[in-house]
């Protein structure tokens, strides 16, 4: 979508002022066209979501009794994982004072807010009675429920991150650091609860186990690294500016973080299978659905290929300096991660609960296909992130890093 913006660049030194003016005009046209297009998607997604609420999820959504969680849940997971990752990456600079990460910190915080908002946008249409949620989450909390903790902590996290961003814009770095730290803590706590939402369901063998919360945190960092690289690159294209050496340096370091985390997740994935094959029949069936079954394309091509192996190779090749290559790798990785979340959520439910009863009704794998309503809401959520990002770049002048930021610590 936003790619169209980057067709023209102002980098060539021989361009005359007149040409620059023309290029600027085209850039501005492309910018507003993209804004318009993204807005349309958000409107369409919202309309689909509202329509779904009116006609009921039974008719509007693809989720069923047996597979109650569909693409809206996995997209929610995708957004909140990315947000947590961005928050963690940004905190390396802002909260923990690692200078290399400073130049990308502000944008990371902003994007963390944008993605968590998109997460809430999608979940609003997934939850059947979101207004009841606002009431009973407060007056009737169940403290043993991971999903309660997750929702509540993410709510707090969203507020802290928004406040942190506001303070950064206002130049109150000392307080921003404190709020940022609280934001990181609530984000990580929320995130491990998200992992536990899945990991503590002992009836669903594919998810069950202590491994989930750790996996979620690691893969959040991976998503965050990818997102910040892609969006920083895009931002400079949008603003038509040369990247400063400090920002380049920050992305170089982020590339290294990305390489490390992809490798860790690849190992995690391998071990998940090795351990899983020592498990019960239902678990093995789910793993086979990924390896050789109906989810094999998603798994091998999208998750492993597009999401991890190719980005890993490209990151290494880029040496952290070839920005276009890094952006391409990051875009691929984010695309792959979207399906990684999808597979995690769906494949966890495709083996019938009563499979081992060996009854006619539950012989093979169950299937789930997202409905158009669901897809529209997902696209609406993605467009929302794009929209907020683009508007943010203009409104906050490219989230410029000021030299004195580091001195405040």
């Amino acid at each position, binding site marked *: 979508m936003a790619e169209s913006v980057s067709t023209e660049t102002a980098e060539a030194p021989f361009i005359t002022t007149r040409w620059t003016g023309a290029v600027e005009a085209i850039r501005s046209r492309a910018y507003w066209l993209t804004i318009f297009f993204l807005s349309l998607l958000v409107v369409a997604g919202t309309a689909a979501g509202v329509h779904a609420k009116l006609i*009921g*999820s*039974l008719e509007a959504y693809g*989720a069923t*009794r*047996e597979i*109650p*969680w569909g693409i809206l849940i996995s997209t929610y997971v995708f957004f909140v994982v990315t947000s947590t990752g961005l928050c963690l990456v940004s905190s390396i600079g802002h909260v923990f004072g690692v200078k290399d990460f400073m130049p990308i910190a502000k944008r990371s915080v902003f994007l963390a807010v944008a993605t968590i908002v998109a997460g809430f946008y999608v979940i609003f249409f*997934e*939850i*059947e*009675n*979101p207004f*009841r*949620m606002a009431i*009973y*989450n407060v007056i*009737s*909390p*169940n403290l*043993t*429920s*991971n*999903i*309660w903790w997750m*929702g509540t902590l993410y709510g707090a996290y969203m507020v802290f991150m928004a406040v942190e961003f506001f303070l950064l814009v206002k130049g109150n770095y000392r307080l921003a650091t404190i709020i940022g730290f609280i934001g990181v803590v609530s984000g990580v706590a929320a995130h491990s609860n998200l992992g536990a*939402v899945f990991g*503590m*369901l*002992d*009836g*669903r063998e594919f998810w069950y186990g202590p491994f989930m919360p750790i996996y979620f945190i690691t893969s959040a960092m991976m998503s965050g690294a990818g997102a910040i690289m892609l969006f920083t690159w895009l931002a400079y294209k949008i603003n038509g500016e040369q990247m400063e050496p400090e920002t380049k340096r920050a992305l170089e370091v982020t590339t290294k973080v990305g390489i490390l985390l992809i490798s860790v997740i690849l190992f995690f994935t391998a071990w998940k299978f090795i351990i899983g094959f020592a498990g*019960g*029949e239902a678990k093995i069936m789910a793993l086979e659905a990924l390896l050789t079954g109906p989810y094999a394309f998603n798994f091998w091509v999208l998750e492993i290929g597009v999401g991890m192996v190719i980005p890993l190779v490209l990151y290494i090749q880029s040496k952290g300096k070839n920005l276009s290559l890094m952006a391409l790798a990051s875009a691929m990785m984010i695309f792959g991660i979207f399906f990684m979340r999808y597979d995690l959520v769906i494949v966890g*439910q495709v083996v*019938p*609960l*009563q499979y*081992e*009863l*060996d*009854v*006619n*009704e*539950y012989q093979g794998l169950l299937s789930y296909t997202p409905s158009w309503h669901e897809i529209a809401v997902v696209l609406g959520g993605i467009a929302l992130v794009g929209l907020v990002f683009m508007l943010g770049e203009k409104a906050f002048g490219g989230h410029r890093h000021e030299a004195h930021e580091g001195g405040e610590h």
Partner: protein
Amino acid sequence: MNTSSRIPDQPEPDKNGVIPEMERRQFLKLGLAITGIFAGGTLLSAASVVDKVFASRQEFADQYPYKPHYSMVIRQDNCIDCERCIEACRATNHVPEYGYRTRILEQVHPESAGRRIEFIPVLCNQCNNPACVRACPTKATYKNQQNGIVMVDKEKCIGCKTCMSACPNNGRYYNEETKSVDKCNFCFDTRLSKGETLTACAEACPAKVRIFGDLSDPQSEVYQRVHNIEKAVWVQRPETGVKPNIFYTKG
């Protein structure tokens, strides 16, 4: 565990579901009483199930002090799939056609010498350690402290469907009409609270498959059957640790 993966040394019950005495003793000696795989569910014990599932009787009473402690024993081999229970349930509890609170599953035994097909009634297990209750963010799903029935407070249900993901027995569905998750509640609101002693399904069953009663009362039929040392009794998916109150037996 499906039936094809039976442990070779495991005794087979005769047509009444009774395991011959000699074999039973040997079986118990093998220490497979808990892990044995049996007739489509997991065999808990060929002897007293309650002692195995819930430790000793006193401990059981201390841990689950429900009075009455509602429970159901399903005489699986007696089910003829007439589905009158399902109809009665629909009518009594206003269950829409896209959902169900109870259902009959079909299990085929091609290798069987006698009847080749067996029908398995399933419903919410009213678990003592319910995964759905732990997972529900707003306490919309809760375990009634008097009678142990797992209930849903429609007003509090936000429709996040976590309980549906958490339940290992597929006991729940989302009801569009009531805007809440719905499940079997042993007809508490529609019958028991109005003085009836049986659930709609138990009353409708012509083959007396569904025996409903109070597990805390040693005189009740559910108690007697669950503690019958001659018959195998089992529950669905015991490995998930939810501790069901729906028991299965034969004969």
